[in-house]
């Protein structure tokens, strides 16, 4: 049950197959036998080979189709119409046809047949008859070339035409109900489209070929490629171009060409944007380096150009020919704004010769991309409007050796701005803020420790130079300078601390100390006057020795070595209080604490002022890169593993959301604890940077007792600033919700309360080890006296100690002394007031001054409880009784470095407690501490010590 059309199709395929065989044998094979040596000839041969293989594929597809049709006709009942290759494999058949057409038109464009025919013109003259056979019906062609062109095209055109006719007829014959009808109709329309495609392809090819023929040789050589097709020529539809001048405009399927005299301007269509705005009359085109305006006298002409260019750009971006005709693609109206293409800039300027590969928007690099300069400079990162903007990594090769400067940095409008990490080829690493491509704001510059002259600067920068407050450590000299800078030089007040413990304060100018300064030596002698950087006393000055003697006069280095002086030695002054001479502080008042680390707080304030934009968080607050050094060694230096990637915008919202949910005191405390310990929270980041500055100043060489004053006021200032930072975040969070902060301005009192009560205890652990070390050093002398006192008293058994301290007998907790058979009360140690002693020892288990004071209060409670138990009634202890008992408990608790503890607590204590209960308790503890240092604890009272009697007593 086969339709006659199917039989006709079978015949058609049989004929076509035979024709293809003949074309291959009589035309293509002979054409390929010539072996030209010139490049043009080789190109022709390549194209002909391609045509041959397309022809071969076409033959195969036709053969397959023929085979399936034969099957169908042989067994019409077993094999359905659907399984005919022409129908079920229509797409493949179509593709093979399209390929053949493209190969063929490429040959036409470069006139490959004519050229190939010339190589063997003798042969072709002989073959004319055979050729004529191929060209049945229109044998008028004389020349070989055109005949060949016809021979390779005509059978195909005819074949496709027959396909369409037969398929349409088949569709009519089988009727609407037939299951394969839809397939047949679809295939028919597919081949109908192929007909249009074929027609357009041939037209374009002929137009292009004609163009190449008419164009002068120079532009032709520059432009001619086999695959290029002319889409529009300004000779057909006139158009004028501005600001570039052009006599002729040629729109090809891949480039737009402007011809002016001999010069040829070529624009890759992938990088041509047609401005969709149709203001004015001109057609506005954007390209990476030029802007073009096309205008015609006739608005219709302009519309044609607009349409053609738009379609050509779209087609070029899609990477394949529109099917069936130009502009039949899915989105015809506008050129896409964002693309991803590579381009090498040609114009003179910053980007000359640089290649950009990545995302574009309207003629400019925009989005992620890579920019490579011919000198090896390499920028990977975000771009905006043609400039580096956002995070980017830039590699700058060094002139010599295989070394790079690597900038991992935030950029704004083409230059480094915001936080960045720069690893220099010289092994120096800068981590800090930039502005306009230069170090600016707070930053840390550290040189590699293994190199000569290791040095680390932590502080402020201005336009690439050290300027403002900063700390520089010179490890070779064993010196640390803490103070003001200007133009990379020490300038202004400064403090120098040395490894040897000697330190001095003075005024610097251009890296040199000028005028008098204060020099403190390790043995607590003080020199006020002029001296050199190498610590040679020179000029007028006054030395105050620890014993109170003063030497005033003029100093010089004399003839030999040693000190040479002429002056007055005053031995009359009474010995000063050692606790005041050894506690002299440097730097107080010279660097106001409010302005000391502005470069750290500043970016945070900017961040808050900008409304906490998530994308600026990194740029302003910094980021952390893991083991940057190792990364540099490996080849992956371009990948920068930062902690927060792109979701920071969403995260910032979560942070603010959470901030609002935790405003009640208890929740606020736990929230702040979490925030400060998180390296992703803005507050945590700020604290981390502050810790870094604190360590840079006060750890190592900076652990000098004369800096304690600076350090303690700095910690308090940090607490104040962190509270302000929290308030700033809160305000932003409320603003986002459309609310205002209810208490418009927090008064100083509340702020201080929050600062001391809430923030200081939370941040103190971060600074504690450095800070406590300073207190430890400052109170070393008293602490050693105190320990000596403790050691002496520890020899006393409990009852002796109570007696020694004049505790009234009725308060002695003798009941607590459980005795073994031959023991006496007088020998038992560490049993009385054990609960209070153990309680007091807990004071060192916390760093929070408030908790320490609470421990103290509980200790007092334990003492009172013990006394009440002993007396059998409630008893309120007056100070006369309390102080001796407290001394007893303190001496038994044996807390090390109690002096440092007490003074740290007092300095960090909330000032609201001044005069209050906690102040009283702390003063009581301090008086115990003072008492234990006293002489009578060491010598005078030793005569009453039972230790000697102990030796006589049997144990």
């Amino acid at each position, binding site marked *: 049950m086969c339709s006659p059309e199917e039989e006709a199709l079978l015949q058609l395929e049989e004929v076509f197959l035979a024709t293809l065989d003949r074309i291959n044998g009589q035309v293509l094979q002979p054409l390929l036998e010539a072996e030209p040596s010139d490049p043009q000839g080789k190109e022709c041969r390549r194209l002909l080979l391609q045509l041959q293989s397309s022809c071969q594929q076409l033959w195969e597809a036709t053969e397959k189709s023929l085979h399936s049709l034969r099957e169908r006709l042989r067994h019409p009942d077993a094999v359905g119409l659907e399984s005919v290759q022409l129908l079920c494999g229509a797409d493949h058949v179509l593709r093979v046809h399209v390929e053949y057409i493209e190969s063929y038109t490429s040959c036409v464009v470069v006139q490959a047949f004519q050229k190939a025919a010339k190589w063997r013109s003798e042969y072709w003259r002989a073959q004319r008859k055979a050729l004529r056979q191929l060209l049945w019906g229109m044998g008028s062609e004389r020349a070989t070339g055109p005949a060949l062109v016809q021979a390779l095209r005509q059978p195909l055109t005819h074949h496709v035409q027959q396909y369409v006719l037969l398929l349409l007829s088949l569709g009519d014959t089988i009727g609407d109900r037939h299951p394969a009808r839809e397939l047949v109709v679809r295939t028919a329309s597919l081949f109908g489209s192929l007909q249009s495609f074929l027609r357009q392809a041939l037209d374009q090819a002929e137009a292009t070929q004609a163009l190449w023929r008419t164009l002068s040789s120079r532009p032709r050589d520059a432009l001619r490629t086999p695959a290029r097709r002319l889409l529009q020529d300004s000779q057909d539809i006139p158009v004028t171009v501005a600001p570039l001048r052009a006599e002729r405009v040629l729109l090809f399927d891949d480039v737009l060409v402007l011809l002016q005299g001999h010069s040829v301007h070529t624009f890759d269509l992938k990088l041509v944007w047609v401005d969709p705005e149709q203001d004015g009359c001109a057609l506005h085109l954007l390209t990476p380096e030029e802007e073009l305006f096309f205008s015609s006298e006739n608005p219709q002409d302009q519309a044609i150009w607009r349409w053609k260019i738009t379609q050509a750009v779209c087609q070029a971006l899609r990477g394949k020919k529109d099917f069936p005709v130009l502009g039949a693609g899915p989105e015809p109206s506008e050129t896409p704004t964002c693309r991803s293409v590579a381009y090498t800039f040609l114009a003179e300027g910053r980007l000359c010769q640089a290649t950009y590969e990545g995302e574009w928007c309207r003629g400019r690099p925009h989005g992620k991309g890579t920019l490579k300069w011919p000198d090896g400079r390499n920028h990977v990162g975000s771009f905006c409007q043609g400039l580096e903007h956002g995070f980017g990594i830039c590699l700058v090769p060094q002139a010599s050796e295989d070394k790079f400067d690597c900038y991992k940095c935030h950029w704004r409008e083409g230059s480094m701005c915001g936080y960045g990490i720069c690893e220099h080829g010289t092994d120096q690493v800068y981590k800090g803020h930039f502005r306009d491509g230069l170090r600016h704001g707070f930053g840390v510059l550290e040189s590699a420790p293994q190199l000569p002259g290791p040095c680390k600067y932590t502080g402020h920068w201005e336009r690439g130079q050290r300027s403002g407050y900063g700390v520089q450590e010179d490890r070779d000299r064993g010196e640390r300078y803490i103070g003001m800078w200007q133009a990379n030089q020490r300038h202004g007040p400064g403090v120098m601390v040395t490894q040897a413990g000697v330190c001095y304060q003075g005024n610097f100018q251009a890296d040199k100390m000028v005028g008098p300064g204060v020099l403190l030596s390790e043995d607590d002698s003080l020199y006020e006057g002029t001296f050199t950087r190498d610590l040679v006393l020179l000029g007028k000055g006054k030395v105050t020795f620890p014993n109170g003697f003063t030497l005033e006069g003029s100093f010089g280095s004399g003839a030999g070595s040693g000190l040479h002086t002429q002056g007055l030695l005053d031995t009359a002054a009474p010995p000063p209080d050692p606790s*005041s*001479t050894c*506690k*002299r*502080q440097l730097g*107080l008042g010279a660097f106001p604490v409010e302005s000391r680390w502005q470069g750290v707080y500043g970016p945070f304030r900017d961040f808050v002022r900008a409304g906490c934009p998530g994308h600026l968080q990194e740029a302003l607050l910094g980021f952390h890169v893991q083991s940057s050094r190792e990364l540099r060694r490996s080849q992956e230096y371009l990948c920068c593993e930062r902690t927060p990637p792109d979701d920071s915008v969403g995260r910032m919202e979560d942070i603010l959301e959470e901030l609002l949910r935790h405003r009640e005191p208890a929740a606020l405390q736990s929230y702040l604890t979490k925030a400060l310990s998180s390296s992703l929270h803005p507050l945590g980041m700020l604290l981390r940077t502050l810790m870094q500055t604190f360590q840079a100043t006060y750890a190592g060489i900076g652990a000098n007792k004369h800096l*304690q*004053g600076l350090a*303690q*006021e700095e910690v308090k200032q940090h607490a104040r600033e962190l509270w302000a930072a929290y308030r700033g975040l809160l305000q932003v969070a409320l603003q986002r919700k459309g609310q205002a902060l209810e208490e418009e301005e927090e*008064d*100083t*009192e*509340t702020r201080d*309360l929050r600062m001391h009560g809430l923030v200081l205890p939370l941040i103190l652990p971060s600074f504690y080890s450095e800070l406590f070390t300073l207190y430890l050093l*400052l109170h070393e002398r008293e602490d050693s006296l105190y320990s000596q006192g403790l050691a002496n008293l520890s020899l006393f058994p409990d009852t002796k100690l109570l007696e020694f301290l*004049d505790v009234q007998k009725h308060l002695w907790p003798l009941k607590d002394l459980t005795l073994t058979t031959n023991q006496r009360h007088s020998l038992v140690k560490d049993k009385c007031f054990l609960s209070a002693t153990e309680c007091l020892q807990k004071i060192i288990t916390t760093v929070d001054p408030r908790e320490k004071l609470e421990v103290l*209060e509980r200790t*007092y409670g334990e003492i*009172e409880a013990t006394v009440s138990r002993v007396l059998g009634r409630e*008893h*309120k*202890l*007056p*100070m*006369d009784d*309390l*102080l*001796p008992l407290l001394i007893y408990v303190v001496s038994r608790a044996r807390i090390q470095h109690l002096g440092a503890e007490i*003074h740290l607590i*007092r*300095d960090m204590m*909330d*000032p*609201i*407690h*001044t*005069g*209050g*209960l906690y*102040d*009283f*308790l702390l*003063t*009581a503890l*301090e*008086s115990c501490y*003072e*008492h234990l240092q*006293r002489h*009578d604890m060491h010598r005078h009272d030793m005569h009453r010590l039972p230790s000697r009697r102990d030796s006589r007593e049997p144990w």
Partner: protein
Amino acid sequence: MRNQAPQYVLHVSRFRHYHPGHGPTAQWENIPTFPVKCPVLVPKAHTWCVRGGGEDTGVGKSSIVCRFVQDHFDHNISPTIGASFMTKTVPCGNELHKFLIWDTAGQERFHSLAPMYYRGSAAAVIVYDITKQDSFHTLKKWVKELKEHGPENIVMAIAGNKCDLSDIREVPLKDAKEYAESIGAIVVETSAKNAINIEELFQGISRQIPPLDSHENGNNGAIKLGKPTAPASRRCC
């Protein structure tokens, strides 16, 4: 036998906005507890009580303070450390003064620790026993020390305790008054036992404490008395 001069240290904080018209009770019940924001003021001034005495039974300094503190209604809001630390609020003009009372050990051997307690205090109450001439001598020694080493402008009050025992009096009231006048101190004879003049003693101190300087303390009203140096600067060179 304990030859001693026990001491109390009192701290004073003051409240503004006290309106006598509303009656003290109503006002005082509204006083927020320590250490809450305004109107409680940061206590920066201390009152320091010293009493003279040469006997082991004491001249009743504990009684004076306990009487003062407990006779009234604010003991429930006062944190105390036994009889060593107490607080007490007294109205004075349109202010409230909160006394923070520090006891100090009076034993001679702890004498050198006394400066730690009286540093920064605004006022001192020095107590003697009118039945003991000795205690009056001790008192004079303390006055001298306070004049020399105590805070500037410290308000001193002399309390002759046990005036209920005036029949065995050894120190005439006239002597005490003359002496007090010579040093510019308040003088009152008290009896802790019969609650005589106790209230008056502390009110006298309140009156002597300079009024709040509104321009200096404008917004928070904290008083800054007798404390020329902040605690932090104590340790500086």
